[in-house]
Structure formats: C-alpha cells, structure tokens
C-alpha cells in the first residue's frame, strides 16, 4: 500500500512538472518567441551571477566552519617531523588553486552575463589571439614547474629510507604492522632491535606472523596490542599483509602506505608530539579561558551522560586501514600512543617476548596441534623441529 502511494505521488509529480513546462511554452507563444528568448537570456545570466556570488560565500564560509577539523589547519598541525612539509606544499597548492578558482569562476559567469544575447546586439568575430594563448600557456607552466619541484623535494625527503649503517634501537626503531581481514597484528623487535624472519606457511592462530623459531632474532620479539612509540625517535614501520591489500594509515602523522601480501613495504617517520601534548593543544584556551577550538570541547560520548570527558580529553591517535580489504574494512582500528622516551622505556619493561611466553618448550605440540586441520605436513616442519631442539 505504502509503495503504491509513493508510485502514485511520483506519477502525479511527473504530470505536474509536465504541465508547468507546457504552461511556460504557451506563455512564450503568446508573448512571441524572440521576446521570450531575450527575457530568458537576461534572467538566466542574472541567475548565473547570483549563483557564483552564493557559491563563493558558501566555499569560504564552509571552509572556515570546518577549519579546526581539517588536518593541517587549526590545532591539527602534523604530529610528525615530515608532516609539516606535506602541510606546507598542501597550503601552497591551496592558495594558488584558490586564486585560479575564484578568478576563472568570476570571469566565466561575468562574461556570460555581460555578453548575454540581447536584441540588436551582435557577436564579435574573435577566432584566436596567439599572444593571449601563449600567455595563458606559459603562466600555468611556470606555476606547475614550481609545484612539481616543491612537491618532489618533499616527496623524496619523506620517502627516504633509514640511512645505511644506522643502528636499530639507537638511531631508529623498526616495528612491523601486519594487516589481516580485519585487524592489525603488531610486532616489536625486542632488545636486539631486529625483527626475526617469518614465512607465510608458518602462520597459525598461535603464530600470527608465521615467525620462524629457529631464527634467534625472533626470540625477543613481542606482540603488543597497541602501537606505543617514543616522541622524537625515528620509526621504520615494516608494513606487511597476510591476505589482501591493506593500507597502514596514521592521519595525524601523515603516514600512509599499502600493505601488500608477498611484498613488504615500509614508511619512515618521526613522531613529534605526544598524545598528551596533542590533547593539550586541542583543549587550549585563550586568556579569558574560552576554548580556542570549541568543537573539541564538546562531550566525547554524547550518548552517555555519565561520561564527562570532552573530545579533546578522550583524543587518541588512531591507526586505520585505507585500502578496501573486504566487508570489515572500516573496522581496522588500533590505538597509537606517542609517549616520552622515559614512558616508552617503562612500557617496554611491561612487554614479554612472544616466544618466551607462548612458544618456548611447546614447539612440537603447538605445531602439531595447529596443523591438525591441514592435509599436508611438509618437510620443512620436521627440519625446523630438529633445529629448534638443537637451539634449546
């Protein structure tokens, strides 16, 4: 019944529209077609001016309305060493394109208005003007050259890998983020600063990275439930995937890189603002005690009246997935905590080696247990078992 009403009202609406169209055509027949056409030209040229004026107001007003929520603006300066460079080239591009946007739009609708068809007017024969065309080819070329050079300098700086000879855990920390449907597995290298080898066929519920236990580098690796990093220390994230494409995405640090099965990628960055400091910045108040960024002073969880936390107090850096990976793509969240070096050391002390806690002494039973569901028991397993017993 409901859908019948909807269909009927849609049909009625269609009839009404057609009738409106007809009435206008009739009135133009009465007034004379030419007369109507010139009237129409003027009114629609005017609508164009109104549109462009309204559009410009909408563009600038909406930008200022959302300013404090956009990365690189308001309180959301980049929280990593390279992020400022990205924000800079973004800003430069923004101002240049904004100028072009405004000028071309004003010209487009102003000329359309100024040269609207009127009785007795004639168009001019202007087929081309080589000088003008060269000017508006050369100027964009120069601007583009500037943007290309600026952009590429930033790009190559950001994408540079760890310099050769840098010492792990002293000059930089290497961690691994491994994507799977639908979550992130995290691995830290432990005291040796080195991530141990792994192989995808070794992956199981009790060995999420498929670590090879005969590789001693694996023995101190640990698997935390969130990313914790010290401020000011260079981090090299080894980004891997066990199943489909994922993307390691830290919006506030301007970090983004695909996780590709079979091909580890990496991203090097240095966090510059701790979570605590970032919260302070979001919650900043002016001399009179009014919040500088009022949108961050709203309740963090409006649905829960008991929860008195404000948004800036509840703020956390988050890790997200930015490459479609299946029906749970939108849920791959992990908390990222940037802390002081001292806090980092304390946190490290609370983490236990995955091998020590879960594997040591149980290699044989674990592996056999895991493999019950599989038909084949390949040769490598037996070899590994002997190796491990040798190590122990």
């Amino acid at each position, binding site marked *: 019944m409901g859908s019948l009403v909807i269909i009927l009202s849609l049909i009625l609406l269609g009839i009404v529209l057609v009738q409106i169209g007809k009435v206008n055509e009739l009135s133009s027949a009465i007034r004379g077609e030419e007369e109507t056409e010139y009237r129409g030209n003027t009114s629609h040229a005017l609508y164009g001016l109104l549109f462009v004026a309204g559009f410009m107001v909408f563009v600038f007003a909406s930008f200022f309305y959302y300013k404090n929520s956009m990365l690189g603006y308001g309180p959301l300066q980049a929280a990593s060493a390279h992020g400022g460079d990205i924000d800079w080239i973004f800003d430069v591009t923004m101002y240049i394109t904004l100028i072009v946007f405004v000028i071309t739009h004003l010209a487009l609708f102003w000329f359309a208005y100024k040269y609207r068809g009127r009785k007795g007017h004639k168009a001019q024969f202007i087929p081309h003007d080589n000088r003008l065309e060269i000017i508006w080819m050369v100027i964009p070329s120069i601007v583009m050259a500037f943007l290309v050079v600026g952009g590429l300098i930033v790009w190559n700086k950001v994408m540079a890998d760890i310099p050769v000879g840098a010492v792990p855990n002293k000059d930089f920390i290497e961690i691994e983020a491994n994507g799977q449907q639908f979550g992130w597995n995290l691995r830290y290298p432990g005291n040796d600063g080195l991530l141990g080898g792994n192989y995808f066929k070794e992956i199981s519920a009790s060995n999420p990275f498929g670590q090879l236990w005969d590789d001693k580098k694996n023995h101190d690796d640990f698997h935390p439930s969130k990313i914790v990093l010290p401020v000011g220390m260079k981090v090299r994230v080894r980004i891997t995937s066990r199943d489909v494409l994922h993307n390691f995405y830290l919006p*506030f640090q301007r970090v983004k890189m695909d996780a590709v099965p079979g091909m580890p990628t990496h991203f090097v960055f240095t966090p510059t603002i701790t979570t605590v400091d970032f919260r302070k910045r979001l919650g900043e108040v002016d001399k009179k005690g009014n919040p500088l960024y009022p949108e961050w002073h709203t309740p963090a969880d409006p649905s829960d009246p008991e929860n008195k936390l404000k948004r800036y107090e509840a703020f956390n850096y988050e890790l997200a997935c930015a490459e*479609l990976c299946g*029906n749970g793509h939108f849920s791959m969240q992990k908390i990222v905590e940037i802390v002081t070096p001292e806090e980092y050391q304390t946190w490290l002390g609370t983490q236990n080696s995955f091998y020590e806690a879960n594997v040591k002494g149980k290699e044989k039973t674990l592996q056999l247990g895991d493999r019950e*569901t599989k038909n084949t028991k390949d040769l490598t397993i037996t070899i590994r078992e002997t190796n491990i017993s040798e190590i122990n």
Partner: protein
Amino acid sequence: MANIDIVTQEDLHHGHDDHDDHHGDKYQSGFFSRYVFSMDHKTIAKQFLITGIIWALIGAAMSLVFRLQLGFPEESMAWLKPILGKWIVVDAEGIGTLDQDFYYALVTMHGTILVFFVLTAGLSGTFSNLLIPLQIGARDMASPMLNMFSYWFFFLAGVVMFASLFLSTGPFAGGWTAYPPLSAVQTAMSGSGAGMTLWTVSLVLFVVSVLLGGMNYITTVINMRTKGMTMWRLPLTVWAFMVTAILGLLSFPVLASAFFLMIFDRSFGTSFYLSEIYINNAPLENVGGSPILYQHLFWFLGHPEVYIIIVPAFGIVSEVLSVHSRKPIFGYKAMVLSILAIAFLAFIVWAHHMFMSGINPFIANIFVVFTLIIAVPSAVKVFNWIATLYGGNIRFNSASLFSIGFVSMFISGGLTGIFLGNSAIDIQLHDTYFVVAHFHIVMGVAAFFGMFAGIYHWFPRMYGRFMNETLGRLHFWGTLVGAYAIFWPMHYLGMAGVPRRYYSFASFDAFNQFAGMNQFITIAAFVVFGLQVVFVINFFYSIFKGKVQKEMNPWGANTLEWTAPVNAGHGNWSGAIPHVHRWSYDYAKDGIEFIPQTVPLKEGEKDMGEH
C-alpha cells in the same frame, strides 16, 4: 517514434521525389531491422543513449542506498526490504540494517556502472554514433554491421552485469578497480566468487564493444569525410570523438589482458597477482606473483579511461558554447592540440593512482612530472572556453547553460587534481573523500553536464522535436547547485583524513565527527536524483509530445548535421552528400550571423580552418 515524425513533418522531408538507394534501404524494412538490430548509426546512437539512461538511473539509485547508510546510519532501512530482500537484515525490534557485503557491492556496482556503462558507452557511444557520420558528411559508419555489434556486445555486457545483481552471494563487491588479491581469491569476500566471475565476463564483453565501436569511429573519420572536409575543418566534436576512440583502442586491450590473467589466477591456479597469502586459516600455494602488476595493467587503461569519459564532453561543450555564443570557438587549433596533448599524456601518467601502493618512490617522480603537465593543456582549454563567451551574443538555453556549468565543474574538479597529482600531498589525501570529491566533480558531474548539453542541443536532430526548456533549465540550476552541495563538502571530509569506502565511521573518533555533513550530503543526493528524474520524464515525454522542430537548422549552426532532413532515413541525405568549403566556426564573420560549411568561400575570402 520515427513514424510519428514522418506523419507530422512531411513538409520538412526534403527531396521527397528523388529517393536514392540509401534512403529507407532494405536493411530498414522490418520492425526488428529498423528499431532493434538496426545498422543505422542514428538508431544505434539512440539505443546507446536510452540504455545509458536506464543504467544511470540504476547506478544512481544504488548510490542513494549507500548514501542513506552513510548519512543516517541509525535509521531503520526495513522499508527497503521489499526491494533489497535479504540484504536488509531486520532484527527482532524491526530495525533494518544494510548488509555490509551489500554496501560494498553497491559501491562497487555504482562505480562500474557509471564509469563503463553510462559515461563510456552512454556518452561516447551515443554522440560518436550520432554525430560522426552526420558532421563529416557520410551516409553511415565505415562498417554499419560492426557498429550494430558494438551496441549488442554492450547490451550483452549489461545483461551479464545485471544478472550478477541477483546472485545469492551478491554481485562483486571489491571496488570498481577490482584489486587482487581481494578480487582474485574467491573466498576473500562473498562477492569475489560468482559475482566477480560475472563482473569479469561482463567487462570483457564490454571491451569488445568499445573496440568494435572505436575502430569504426576512427576509420570513418579518416576515410569517409565528404569532399572539402579537411581535418582542420572538422568540428571539435569529431576531433574529440576520434581521439577518444584512439585512446580506447590502445588502452582497453590492456584491461582485457589484465582480466585474462585474473581469470587464470581465479580459476586455473596461476600466480600472476598472488603471492604468500594466508587466508581463511590456510596458506595458499601461490607464490611469486604481484598484486602491483594488476594495478599497473588496470590503470594503464584506468587513466586513459577518465579521458575517454571527459574528452567527448570537451568536444560537445566546445561546439555547443560556440553555437550558442554565436561566436567561433576561441583558438580552434589550440583546442585540437590540447586534446591531442592530453590524450598523449594520458598514457604516461597511470601510476599516479599508485603512489601509495608500494611502488618504488623514485618511479613516482616521473609520474608526478607528467601528471602535473596535464594541467597546462587543461588550463588552455578552460581559458579558451571562457574567451569564447567573451564578446558573444549568448543564447541561454538548457544546452548552453549545461556547457557553462561544465566549465565550472571542470575548473573545480581539475584544480583539486593538482593536489592529488603531487605525490607528496597524495600521502595525506590518497583514498580519502578528497579523491571522491575530485573525480566525481571532474569526470562524473562534468561529463554528465557535457552529456546533458549534447542531449538538449541535438535532441531535435535525434527526434525532430525539442525538449521542454522550462524543465531543462530547472534541471540545470538544480543540478548545478545540488551537485556542488553533494561533492564540495567531501573535500573537507578528505582534508580531515576520512577514508573512502567506509561502511561506518563509528570505530574511529577522528572520522566520526561529521554526522551533520554526511546527512546534508545524503539529502542533497536525493534532491539531485529527483531532478534527474525530471530530466528523464522530460526526455521521454518530448520524444512523443515535445515542441515540433519547424526549421531544419533551429540553432543557426554551421555544421553538416543540420543540412540533413529531420526524419532522414538510413543514409542521412536524401539527395547528394553536401560538400564542404570552410571550417565549421564561421559565426559572426563579416557581420553575418552564421555561414554554414556548405557555403562556398567568397572571392579572396580566407578559410580559418586552413590558416
């Protein structure tokens, strides 16, 4: 349709007495050969257009469903259950939620349908078919038969894709780019099984359609121009359609090859795209392949594809703006050369879609340079369109309004491309709503505006009647404002870092703060959809009841299509084919409002097309 024309427009039927062989030939004798398996390029154009309109409605309706999910995630969707069936899960309290898999299926199908079926087939297929023979002075395409096959392969592709919507596992849901392993591993997602198989089959059929059409367009333009129609006298529409066809001919086979490797990986155990995968609690045997290979092959088509979509709109808008400004297009040769430059560059910029995919960062340098060079010919085009308005005597009607709207959209969307093409900025913006805003404005809305301009302008050429102007203008202003209302705010979402293709933002504090904006976008989308329904009503109503075209050349245009009788049968001109003596843009020359191409040059008169 056409028989109505014959009755009411007998008086326009020039040369009635000298029927020549081409008019109403034996291939047009029966109902089927006339309206269904027709070889007349004008009928095939209408078939492409109407099929495209139907697909556009389906694709747009899909976007409304996923916009509801994004704008009103808390609202019950139980009322959609009669249409979507099991994809709406209704709980004990009667609250209906959209199935996650189906959300991604809708997003994927929306993209596939709009990019391939609507903006490739519906736009280039319609206007290349309609205008190439008529504007170059040919009786039909070089091969009318292949032309007919081109449509029917497209139709078949559509049937297969439509069938996939009804699979119990749902249609393919891994995004319109179909990146492996998500698309290649049949168990990675429910749509990656039979849904992906049908998706691949459909698109391979579609590639065949594009290739048959494209070969025809190119051959026709090169070989079948009438006497006097040199390349530099061609209207910009024909240039645009020919370049589009060349782009398609060179890039679509690469897509087909990517799909064949995909089929091997999916069904025959090869490892072109797969390596070291552990999925559903078991390792796969595939090693040594690379998912990046697929991305290279895909975007080698995918990037030219966006120009296949937008270049025909360039041509249409240039022609429509010039005719209705009553002025020559400004800088004709610069317009041709910029199309050629853009088409050439289209082939060497594909990896700008892959800056964050794990390719060597050094390679990105080269792609950044070429990508940003595209801004130069694009800027030339924009300035030339604006200069075409300068000094004109502009007629404001639906066609010219949509052309002006096109220029606005092309500027807005083109400028955001400068952000995304710069790899450093792309780190921040890749796969966020900024990208969604960019490509919807520059190749979605802009291409649609070009298509609308073309439909309103050439409707009399197709059906001998006009579309209703009042509804057309309402359609334009509503769509212009509405389209910006939908897509402009998405820039802010993207600048806030919100990723695209999220079913829900609830898991992330940073992304979950724009509920109001998402509602606004969804409401705007519904309004804009309503306006497109107005267009569709206007279109079909006007075919039968629109204002009858009384003059053969209602817009006072110079090009040849307006020299053929309104109800021209197969063969276009009932008498001899017209000859051409000048370029197609002699508007306002020497104080004369317009001089058709068939008018011989006066003594000592210079032809602009030759100088």
